């Protein structure tokens, strides 16, 4: 089974990368840009047929390693 995980900074947490990217895009002429925030993305494939179990497993990965829960939020999606 294949999942995607998107990890984003919590609201109110400074996103220095997003800020610089935003300025750069603006300077490149993309003036309509209102806001951009940068996060991480994972594509994860696991050997597990049971969807519930699989999702639990992905969740565990997020909690244990992929996400810094203190400053980040995350969301899991099943792919295909």
């Amino acid at each position, binding site marked *: 089974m294949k999942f995607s995980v998107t990890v984003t900074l919590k609201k109110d947490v400074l996103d*220095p*990368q997003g800020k*610089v*990217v935003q300025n*750069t895009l603006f300077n*490149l002429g993309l003036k309509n840009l209102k806001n951009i925030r*940068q996060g991480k993305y994972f594509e994860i494939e696991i050997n597990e047929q049971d969807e519930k179990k699989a999702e639990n497993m992905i969740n565990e990965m997020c909690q244990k390693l992929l996400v810094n829960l203190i400053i980040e939020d995350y969301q899991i999606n099943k792919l295909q």
Partner: protein
Amino acid sequence: MKSSVIVFPGSNCDRDIAVALEKMQFKNQMIWHKETTLPKSDLIVIPGGFSYGDYLRSGAIAGKSLIIDEVIKAANDGCLILGICNGFQILTETGLLKGTLLRNKNLKFINKDVHVKVTNNKTKFSSKYKINQILKLNVAHNEGNYFTDSFHLETLKKENLIAFQYCDKFGNINNQANPNGAIQNIAGIYNSKKNILGMMPHPERMVDKLISNTDGINLFSSLIN
């Protein structure tokens, strides 16, 4: 010889390279990235550091700056271009050099002295070195893991475009001597015309005996000739 060092916000080896160039009798100028013209130079250096904080991808944002268009023009006219560390990353982002620099394989920043072998000494950058000479240079980077597709890798070898390769102190090119996972231990490459050199190690850190050694000097003295 006239040289220009391009300074981006976040460049931090700009002073170091300027000191080295001046010590080697270059007439050097610092060029702020917002400038739209380049003074006539024999050598353009893109220094190390963290241009734009290395945010997004190292070198990506600097690769879009105004001055880069001028650098590309000069490069096409045959001007010598040297990109060190972040400068190398910027050159790959602009397409002046092929391939890319990925995260170090251990995902950690690495600063240490490493050995590299001079793989090609028949260029304007390396003529003062002996072929296969072993240099001890300092590396300091997060993304020094050079990667390119197999087709380009063949070209690099066929056209003798590999400048330096990481090796051990005896000159053996192997995994243990590879600090960052770079393909074929590549530490630096040339473009096809060999007027552009991108390298991860910092030659400017190796021009003063008191600080380190003088293994970087011949790179600059090759250029003077």
